[in-house]
């Protein structure tokens, strides 16, 4: 597909500012419609909105006040200065009881951001999978709860984490217990079935904020396929936090699909530490919600570790999708790939920030970063910022971004064969993104998906059309 290419690094600064302001306003709107005093942090920094949080999470708030609200497009990366950030947890904690798993998967159901035991299928007796919500019991074994996490990683506090903690204070009226879940896969265990986290909500969370957190710890040589599905409908803002630790030789396939309701805003964060020879593969797909941000912050700490980031965002109407990958190669002989694609219809907007940092002693790193966009809508907009920050000498790193429209000749070719314009656009979009599904099928070990009787009569592109346009 021929695409006209332009590097968005050249985007005018006014455009960026306008864009940042708009994103800012969305969060503002999300926060303001909560049952809290308005008028307003956004004009004066010392405000009522924060008073409420301040009582519960003073330090987290301090960072936000100090550094400003986490911004999607901050131009500087100096937003991560050293700040002491220790916040106390105030959640009640319950242990998970064991339930039978079903045939297809181990399932954890979260309703309104909290783990729902009766709908979850787990077999903790088998000891293949340990799921706990009792942080105090586990604190010795799992020291990396969200609060300790803000301190680790070279003492670089993270604004997104601070946001997550700060928002916890606003959870009143919802079940606050069990929204932080700890999962551990023991040494040398490979789970045959995937672990599924399903995020749902009901009218109780209407216009509220929910903050589910999952800590996933794979011990040495453990392997897991982890699927996350977000289908919340009522909440105003979901702020998901996933914390991943892969010990030596561990292997994780992490698939996430964000298909929330049309009025939902979602900030999804994944933090990870990858040790010796571990392997992480992720594919995230955004197509629900009115705006969602997927941030992935990974630290590649062990020699031989590999990380592969893949993302697909399909926007329509006025949806707004953002992907941020922040990847630190801290040791030598580590590899990573980033491959992101956006298909934007109508007036939808997309943004990609890929930040790749190679430390001074990390020789022999091989890393690639690519973001491609297909603009279908006349008024759709894309912002791409691929960035490399390299301090080592002997590395192989590449980055690039393309943004293009549908080729008019290709469209004519398809239409001259009787295919309507809408269908032709769907076919071309599908052709553009198909590689992700092929890769995923290969990674999951199903090279050729079999044709079932139900999809015999429909084309993949028809499904694509039905689901996304």
């Amino acid at each position, binding site marked *: 597909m021929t695409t006209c290419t332009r590097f968005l690094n050249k985007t005018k600064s006014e455009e960026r500012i306008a864009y940042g302001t708009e994103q800012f306003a969305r969060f503002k709107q999300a926060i303001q419609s909560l049952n809290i005093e308005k008028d307003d942090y956004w004009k004066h920094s010392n405000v009522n909105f924060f008073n409420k949080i301040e009582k519960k999470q003073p330090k987290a708030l301090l960072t936000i006040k100090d550094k400003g609200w986490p911004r999607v497009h901050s131009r500087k990366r100096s937003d991560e200065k050293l700040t002491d950030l220790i916040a106390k947890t105030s959640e009640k904690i319950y242990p998970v009881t064991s339930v039978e798993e079903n045939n297809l998967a181990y399932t954890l159901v979260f309703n309104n951001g909290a783990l729902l035991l009766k709908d979850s299928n787990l077999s903790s007796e088998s000891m293949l999978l340990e799921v706990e919500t009792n942080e105090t019991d586990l604190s010795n074994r799992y020291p990396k709860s969200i609060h300790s996490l803000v301190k680790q990683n070279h003492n670089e506090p993270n604004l997104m984490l601070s946001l997550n903690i700060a928002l916890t204070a606003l959870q009143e009226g919802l079940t606050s217990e069990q929204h932080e879940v700890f999962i551990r896969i023991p040494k040398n265990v490979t789970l045959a079935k995937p672990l599924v986290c399903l995020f749902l909500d009901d009218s109780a969370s209407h216009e509220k904020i929910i903050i589910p957190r999952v800590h996933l710890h794979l011990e040495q040589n453990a392997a897991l396929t982890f699927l996350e599905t977000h289908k919340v409908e009522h909440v105003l803002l979901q702020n998901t936090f996933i914390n991943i630790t892969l010990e030596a030789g561990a292997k994780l396939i992490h698939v996430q699909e964000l298909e929330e309701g049309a009025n939902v805003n979602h900030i999804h964060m994944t933090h990870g530490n990858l040790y010796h020879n571990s392997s992480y593969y992720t594919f995230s797909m955004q197509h629900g919600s009115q705006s969602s941000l997927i941030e992935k912050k990974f630290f590649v700490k062990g020699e031989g570790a590999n990380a592969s980031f893949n993302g697909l965002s399909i926007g329509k109407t006025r949806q707004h999708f953002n992907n941020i990958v922040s990847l630190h190669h801290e040791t030598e002989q580590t590899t990573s790939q980033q491959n992101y694609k956006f298909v934007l219809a109508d007036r939808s907007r997309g943004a990609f920030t890929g930040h790749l940092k190679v430390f001074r002693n990390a020789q022999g790193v091989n890393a690639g970063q690519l973001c491609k966009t297909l603009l279908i809508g006349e008024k759709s907009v894309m912002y791409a910022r691929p960035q490399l920050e390299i301090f080592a000498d002997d590395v192989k790193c590449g980055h690039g971004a393309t943004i293009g429209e549908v080729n008019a*000749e290709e469209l004519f070719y398809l*239409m*001259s064969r*009787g*295919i309507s314009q809408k269908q*032709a656009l769907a076919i*071309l979009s599908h052709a553009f993104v198909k590689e992700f599904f092929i890769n995923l099928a290969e990674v999951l070990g199903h090279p050729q998906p079999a044709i079932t009787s139900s999809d015999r009569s429909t*084309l993949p*592109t028809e499904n694509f059309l039905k689901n996304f346009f």
Partner: protein
Amino acid sequence: MLEIKNLHAEVNETKVLKGIDLTVKAGEIHAIMGPNGAGKSSLSRIIAGHPLYTVTEGSVTYEINLKKQNLLTMDTHQRACEGIFMSFQYPLEIPGLSNKEFLRAAFNEVSKYQGSEPMDVIEFEELLEQKMDKLGIKKSLLSRELNVDFSGGEKKQNEIIQMAVLAPRIAFLDETDSGLDIDALKIVATGIQKFKSNHNATVLITHYHRILEHIKPDFVHILKDGKIIKTGDAKLALEIENKGYQVAAS
């Protein structure tokens, strides 16, 4: 079946057609020959409904169910569904789209338009099998991505597969014979011959007499400078081959 009257058209403010008159009836084969830049490709693209071309004067009427309709007001895909087919001089490559999937999508869209049931994967596979056997084209083309890494000859053969699957009423074949070796030319010519019936018509746009040895045209037209300047029978093609356009036209 198709009646073109005094057709004037332009693209990017350049006049490409300056008064074409052409009538094509069912069962006929027309050959349009002419020097480079005469407007041959433009004519077929305008009939197929390319959005870049603007018709400034004249009319194109197309007979659908014995009623004469104005073709120029129809959408590109609608024309295709009504049986207008144009084979591309340079078929496009579309990575990520499987050839078979594309053929089925096109076939089903046309079926849907014409009011018949769409085919599922298995049924369509059978239909394709029959068509491919008839044409004598190797089936490995089907499992590849649409025209991606196809040789020039394979691309042209692929156009013939599309024609066979869609079974149009009138086919404009834009230099389908260019760049083909002798075997590929035979395959393409056989395809066109098999397509011929009393209910459909073919318009061959070509530079060479070679393909006309396989397919005997009923009419040969010389198109030059946006106009048809001479019309004759198959002998005219031979004359052009021997003497060039200048002499043949005079």
